[in-house]
């Protein structure tokens, strides 16, 4: 049989919408033109109904689709089983599409589509398209099965008590981790594709009747404005939805823990998952979240309160310790007892630098060690400990470059900054520390107070999706104090945090079951 080959002239553009033609050859031609030089795409043409049967065509991306499923549950019934059972092929020849869809394929999840660009889009994310001759519809079989990392414990947020699962790079697994924790039909997972070329899946998660609708609207309007070629990680989204891009303070919370996201969603906040990124974003965020850990809610409340105080003190110390050292040694030695002042002066006797230079040297060294420690391959990671601890610490003192007190100060700073739960905030405080040190070297204690006031003015003006950054401390919400600096027993946490302005504020009804 001779077929007249149609001339196909086709050029791809993301906005074009080409209808699937009834002529299967034309469709094949368009798709092959479109996916020319894409050697990871597999095309398979075959005939149904034995020799002289009708032509079918499927294509998928090798490595992203489940080959076994295609072989056994799509090709097998279509090519072989269909010939072994009644009715005969010739009887159903004219309604091939319906029969294929309803009787032949042994897969649960497929859709009908008729725009070629959309079909290619779906195939590139792992599905398989099945073209049937003389039909202007295409069956899209869900065959996504690509290499994924299994769910494992998050490395940046470790808890002693609490779930051990963390997000992976696959958005579907991640949404499942959250859905398992929120079995409520009112919990919505809205998906969007962002990135002109990357078409990355973004999932926006919230509970419909708790979330503050204004936050949601604001988020959508910001997401709609994004017009970028690719979204590689959730960090891209974070930067694109934040108001103050130069700020050192993160205006969205990042976490690797599904339990943290679920808890936030229950509080009326919005979670954002990005495909290919194990970090979820939570908006809005307040300073509160940075000193809390998921663990606080699982362990005993009094101890949690104590630990929260500890973290706040650690946060203050990690900013203040070196600048206080500078201020006291070079401006106000009278503040500390005379004996201590004398012994500090004695240890500093051989040090040729002013306190500021001494502190900068040691803090910069510490930052270097820290950065190197992160980048070092694991087997030689412990080298950094030896180099840092022995060589820099002890040798620098022995060489008379820094005083032993300075080494203690740096150690306190380091330990304090590691006890802040949020990595991004800890980094912000690291930067602040240097500003405080410079101010202390010029004005002493007055400089520290000035930089405190300056920082506070900045933070007070900062908002994350309309929520003041320092809430519930400023503006002050008395009822939210139960779960901010303090952590009352769960029995008393009857309302959701009001500073997120949830629609439904009651989280725990009375004992008789009423609200």
């Amino acid at each position, binding site marked *: 049989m001779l077929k007249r080959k149609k001339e196909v002239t086709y050029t791809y553009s993301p906005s074009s919408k080409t209808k699937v033609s009834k002529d299967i050859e034309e469709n094949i031609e368009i798709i092959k033109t479109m996916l020319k030089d894409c050697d990871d795409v597999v095309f398979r043409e075959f005939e149904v109904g034995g020799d002289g049967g009708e032509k079918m065509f499927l294509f998928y991306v090798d490595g992203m689709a489940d080959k076994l499923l295609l072989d056994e549950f799509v090709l097998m019934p279509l090519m072989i089983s269909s010939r072994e059972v009644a009715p005969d092929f010739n009887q159903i020849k004219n309604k091939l599409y319906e029969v294929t869809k309803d009787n032949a394929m042994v897969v649960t999840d497929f859709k009908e589509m008729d725009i070629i660009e959309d079909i290619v889009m779906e195939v590139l994310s792992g599905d398989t398209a099945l073209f049937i001759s003389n039909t202007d519809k295409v069956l899209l079989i869900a065959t996504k099965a690509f290499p994924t990392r299994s769910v494992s414990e998050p490395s940046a947020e470790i808890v002693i008590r609490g779930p051990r699962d963390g997000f992976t790079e696959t958005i579907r697994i991640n949404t499942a981790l959250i859905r398992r924790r929120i079995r409520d039909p009112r919990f919505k997972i809205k998906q969007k594709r962002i990135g002109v070329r990357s078409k990355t899946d973004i999932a926006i998660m919230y509970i419909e009747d708790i979330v503050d609708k204004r936050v949601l609207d604001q988020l959508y309007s910001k997401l709609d404005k994004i017009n970028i070629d690719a979204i590689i990680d959730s960090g891209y989204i974070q930067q694109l939805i934040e108001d103050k891009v130069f700020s050192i303070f993160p205006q969205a919370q990042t976490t690797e823990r599904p339990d943290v996201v679920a808890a936030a969603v229950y509080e009326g906040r919005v979670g954002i998952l990005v495909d290919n990124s194990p970090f979820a974003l939570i908006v809005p965020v307040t300073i509160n979240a940075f000193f809390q850990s998921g663990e606080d809610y699982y362990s005993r409340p009094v101890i949690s309160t104590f630990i929260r105080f500890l973290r706040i003190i650690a946060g203050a110390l990690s900013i203040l310790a070196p600048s206080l050292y500078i201020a006291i040694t070079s401006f106000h030695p009278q503040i500390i007892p005379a004996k201590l002042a004398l012994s500090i002066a004695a240890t500093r006797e051989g040090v040729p630098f002013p306190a500021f230079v001494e502190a900068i040297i040691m803090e910069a060294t510490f930052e270097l060690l820290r950065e190197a420690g992160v980048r070092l391959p694991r087997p030689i990671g412990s080298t950094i400990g030896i180099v840092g601890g022995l060589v820099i610490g002890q040798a620098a003192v022995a060489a008379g470059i820094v005083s032993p007190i300075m080494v203690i100060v740096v150690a306190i700073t380091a330990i304090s900054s590691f006890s802040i739960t949020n990595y991004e905030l800890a980094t912000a405080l690291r930067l602040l520390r240097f500003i405080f040190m410079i101010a202390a070297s010029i004005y002493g204690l007055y400089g520290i107070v000035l930089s405190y006031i300056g920082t506070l003015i900045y933070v*007070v003006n900062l908002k994350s999706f309309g929520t003041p950054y320092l809430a519930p401390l400023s503006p002050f919400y008395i009822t939210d104090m139960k779960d901010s600096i303090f952590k009352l027993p769960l029995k008393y946490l009857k309302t959701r945090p009001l500073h997120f302005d949830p629609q439904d504020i009651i989280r725990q009804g009375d004992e008789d079951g009423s609200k």
Partner: protein
Amino acid sequence: MVPNDDKISQFQVALIVFLTPIGVGIFTLPSTLAKDVETNGWLSLILGGLVCLLEIYFICCIAKKYSPAKFTDVLKQLFGKFLGTIFAVIIFIYFLIFSALEVRLFAETTKMYLLYKTPLEYIIIPFLFLGIILARCGIEPIARFFEAVIYLVAITFILVFLLYLPKSDYSNLLPVLRIHPLKLLKGVEDSFFSFSGFEVLLLLFPFMRDSKKSFKVSAISIMLITFIYVVIFVQCIARFGVDYTKTLLYPTLSLIKSSDVPGAFIEGIEGLLFSLWIVLIFTTLAMFIFAYSVIAGDLLKQKEAKHIVILFLPAVYIVSLLPDNIASTFELVDKLIKSLGYFVILILPTLMFIVSKIKGERA
């Protein structure tokens, strides 16, 4: 999400009325009182607080009637366009000069207790600069800033109250009430002006989300301030005695200096406490700057007060450097209080109250 309407809550009003009056005045207050009324200072403080409450009552009554009209508009309605404008200008000058003098006194104290060698100009400039930055953010960020510092302020006061004062003798407070009533009035006057700063309440009403409880919350703030002042005065007299207190320049700081921290890790606690106190002085400054820029903005018919804040910065800076030394600064403060201060915080609210009553009856 908090509505972004540049309005403040009643709690924030209470904080503003609480934090604005407390500034540098408290450092000298005990010696001024000791000079004028000897041991009866605490009584005059309480009486001064009561007068202050009365003024606040007047302010709230006027506000209830005219709210949410702007302050300058209220003035114009009450006293006519010409007189109202003049009054507004006087209040503007009052806030401007007092913010300048507040900065000067603060700089002098800082120089004395923290930075012996730094020239005044270098102390004043960054402080004013920060004050301007905060003031131009608008009332809502200012209020949130006040809320954010209240924790530190609370720590400061707790530290001051917990000070262990060896050799305190509370019998120094005797004799009580052995004083001519007219002389006591002099003390009441001193006390009353130590509360100056509460008058910013006049300007706050257009910014309130709901002003029903404003008298109650401001009254609580004033009572709290009275309590703090009385405690400090009593401690000073008990520790130093009347005669010695009179001679001290900054009795409050001397009091802190004379305290003893058992098992001391910190010895010179007055430097540390004074640094914490800087935040309190800063709140006063920021509020005064905001106050004068609001009035200037209204007078110049500007919608945004943002640029006005910067416009008058040189004036504040120059006025703050006018007095030659600390003694002449105190003299100037005294002179201004006797003239401008009397008018703005005592006479004007009373006058406004009376006129509004008369006008109200007519209407």
